[in-house]
């Protein structure tokens, strides 16, 4: 693969125009801001202490009615020294998707739990805790999901390293 060019047709990075949904969320005045990065669906960003309030509003308000937490995960932004928590909300009645993004510091990764809003959040948060070490405040049962209870470190962090990581032995000829 000597040529490292971008495939023709790939657009230059351009932010999506703000959709109606994002505008109406910003109008709620719940400290939500438009998403800074590039996303392929309506997206907002909130500070961590305003998260629970916003999510509760989005779930309960019939205008939005995001009744399903379709996906929740974290992205390790090592160069900015933050974890980006990503919540993909989905509204079954309005068939709308929304990304809610929260930045939390890597050295004190604590976020409020939203397992009171969507039940599945309890387990999606456990997965994030297991792999990233994000602690969820008020979580009813915060423990490892995939790894053993006494596992050291959080494997999906970019700076994770352990002695068992696979290195391929060189082949003798």
């Amino acid at each position, binding site marked *: *693969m000597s040529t490292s060019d971008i495939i023709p047709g790939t657009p230059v990075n351009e932010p999506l125009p703000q959709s109606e949904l994002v505008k109406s969320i910003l109008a709620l005045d719940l400290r939500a801001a438009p998403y800074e990065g590039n996303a392929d669906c309506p997206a907002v960003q909130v500070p961590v202490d305003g998260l629970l309030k916003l999510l509760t509003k989005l779930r309960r308000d019939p205008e939005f009615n995001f009744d399903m937490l379709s996906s929740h995960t974290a992205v390790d932004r090592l160069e900015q020294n933050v974890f980006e928590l990503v919540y993909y909300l989905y*509204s079954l*009645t*309005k*068939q709308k998707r929304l990304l809610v993004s929260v930045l939390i510091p890597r050295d004190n990764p604590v976020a409020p739990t939203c397992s009171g809003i969507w039940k599945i959040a309890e387990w999606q948060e456990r997965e994030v805790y297991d792999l990233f070490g994000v602690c969820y405040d008020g979580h009813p049962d915060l423990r490892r999901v995939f790894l053993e209870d006494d596992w050291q470190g959080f494997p999906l962090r970019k700076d994770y390293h352990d002695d068992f990581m696979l290195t*391929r032995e060189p*082949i*003798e*000829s």
Partner: protein
Amino acid sequence: MKFFDSTNGVIGHKLLGELTIEVVVAPRARTGSAGIANWFGYVYRSILSLLKGMKITLGYLIRPSTVVTQQYPENRATLKMFERFRGQLRLTYDDNGYMRCNGCNFCELACPNGTIVIKARRNAVSNMTELDQFIWRLDSCTFCNACLQACPHEALEWSKDFEAAVYDRRLLVYALNKYAGPPAIAIKRAEKKQENVEALKATVDSRKRYEGKVPLAGVALPGVPALEMEAENRE
């Protein structure tokens, strides 16, 4: 009499928000909850449903033609794999016995698991890179076909051989090329130009091919003796 008025479900529409979706609604079986007559009907229907199932299994019992078992080791002679079957990786050779691979490394880069290792060398005559050794590790191959897709020279193919089980992991490290030296395309080019053909052909070094069930570099393994032929090639 059936459990259901129809097992096909009820056709209808359902609303998801403002979206109308054409649905089929699951039927519910009639139960024998109320009334003694209903209860007897339920018992009757139950027995009937059991007999119906027994009819199906009996139908298969009395028709030996429905047996689908393949007697595998016995049918080896007639067993034919599909033409795209991903059996084992092989190098292709042209009619004169020269391989098409020129050691360009594309397959190694495309491989997600580091399964392919290419050792290339520089030809003394033509001063072009060429293949020294093509190592394929069946033990870590996931048969994803990425190497064939990446290969620009159609130098790789899948053999239809699917019996690759061995008793030792080390036996799964294959060396695929039978010689180290110029690929078919280089020979052809030289023949076209009418120069250095013999000198180029003379650079061909024989390589022991390991295409399965031969220990890596011929070392002895428990139950597998060391290969005599290997001794000369072993460093």
